[in-house]
């Protein structure tokens, strides 16, 4: 019995040490902030890239323009490379090779890298969304005199995006978890800060568990929000 109590006491102390002294909880808060900032901007960048790539790929099937066909080839290459190589390797390459300047913010590098990575996955989601919009919509737009691109922008894309919002939300959740890899390029995100606290207290497990719990809470919360959102959207469709 005493042994068990001592164990519990020890456990309490190690978690206490991982949180309270030297305002260590602020390290989690700051880390979480950076994690969320990177995820948010990366998802925005990813959606922007994804939409452009998807539109180019869809356009390819409807035009003889050489430029579009060349761009579509580049997009294919981009998607193949990004989806075919590990995220961590991409991150290290971009950090060490492309952003060589000393004062490049690792947060910026992280955001750009995750955005580029996410774009490849989002592109396929958007493309599926565009293809799911009835062809009559494109025809109606064209018959009024809109160009292909303007019809895409004003008529097809808004409907496609609405259909794929749940999938995009999912991508955001995946991204939040993946940003933990950013610690390898010295970004002080949630994971990195947890490791740092572990190195201060000589006890690595408690801060990592705390970080895991924080990730879990964020992801569960976001999933719940998404479900709510999806239900709202579905209601809008039925009227």
């Amino acid at each position: 019995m005493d042994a068990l109590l001592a164990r519990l006491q020890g456990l309490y102390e190690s978690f206490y040490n991982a949180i309270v002294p030297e305002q260590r909880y602020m390290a989690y808060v700051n880390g979480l902030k950076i994690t969320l900032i990177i995820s948010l901007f990366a998802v925005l960048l990813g959606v922007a890239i994804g939409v452009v790539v998807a539109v180019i790929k869809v356009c390819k099937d409807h035009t003889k323009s050489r430029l579009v066909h060349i761009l579509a080839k580049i997009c294919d290459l981009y998607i193949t490379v990004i989806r075919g190589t590990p995220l961590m390797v991409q991150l290290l390459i971009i950090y060490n090779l492309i952003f060589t300047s000393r004062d490049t913010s690792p947060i910026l590098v992280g955001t750009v890298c995750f955005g580029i990575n996410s774009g490849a996955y989002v592109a396929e989601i958007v493309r599926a969304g565009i293809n799911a919009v009835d062809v009559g919509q494109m025809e109606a737009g064209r018959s009024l005199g809109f160009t292909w691109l303007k019809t895409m922008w004003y008529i097809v894309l808004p409907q496609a995006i609405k259909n794929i919002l749940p999938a995009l939300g999912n991508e955001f959740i995946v991204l939040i978890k993946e940003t933990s890899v950013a610690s390898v390029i010295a970004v002080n995100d949630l994971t990195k800060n947890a490791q740092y606290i572990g190195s201060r207290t000589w006890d690595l497990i408690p801060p990592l568990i705390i970080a895991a719990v924080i990730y879990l809470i964020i992801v569960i919360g976001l999933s719940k929000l998404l479900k709510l959102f999806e239900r709202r959207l579905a209601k809008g469709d039925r009227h």
Partner: protein
Amino acid sequence: MIVTKQLRKSFGNHEVLKGIDQHIEKGEKVVVIGPSGSGKSTFLRCLNLLEEPTGGEVWFEGVQITDPKNNINSMRQKMGMVFQQFNLFPHLSVMDNITLAPRKLKGVSAEEAREKAVELLRRIGLEEKAESYPNQLSGGQKQRIAIIRALAMDPDVMLFDEPTSALDPEMVGEVLELMKELAREGMTMVVVTHEMGFAKEVANRVLFMDEGIVKEENTPEEFFGAPNHPRLKEFLSKVL
């Protein structure tokens, strides 16, 4: 106004249009009938190049629109089109459906486009639906709004691709009534339809298409009263 010269269209190895020569004059109402698969919808869709012809020429108001040098998008602004499946934009309100093209393509101000839309909506008695969304409307209402959406661009010709085929029977009348009204006002119209009554009443000229060619064309009186071609006689005996 619209001239086609040896218009041809193939899908793969299947030749749907086998050389159509037509002159459609300003103010004329041409009704195209024929069995399904005869190419009548394809013919209509070639007139504004929704289908790209594989041979021949299409001229509109003296411009060869099949020539890639000519800007098809600006030509299409003068050619309204109405589809079987309405194709209203479901993410936009009725008002935005009507005003989108005039605002974005002709640079009409928002207020001006609105005023015109309200006027058009009033004409079909649906002004209270301005802020509704398409999926809150009946089929007949959708199709009438699709028609005034096309009219909002002030087209010189209106193309109708089986406008009543997807409607419940009791809603066909309201759509045909609006089309007749347009006809009376002198709109140039090309209508692909199965509504023989409409053809008899409104058309200046009826075309019978079968197997990718126009097998017979005539005034509605002659066309329905004294058909010549055996295929047309057979067709009419089935549908009338």
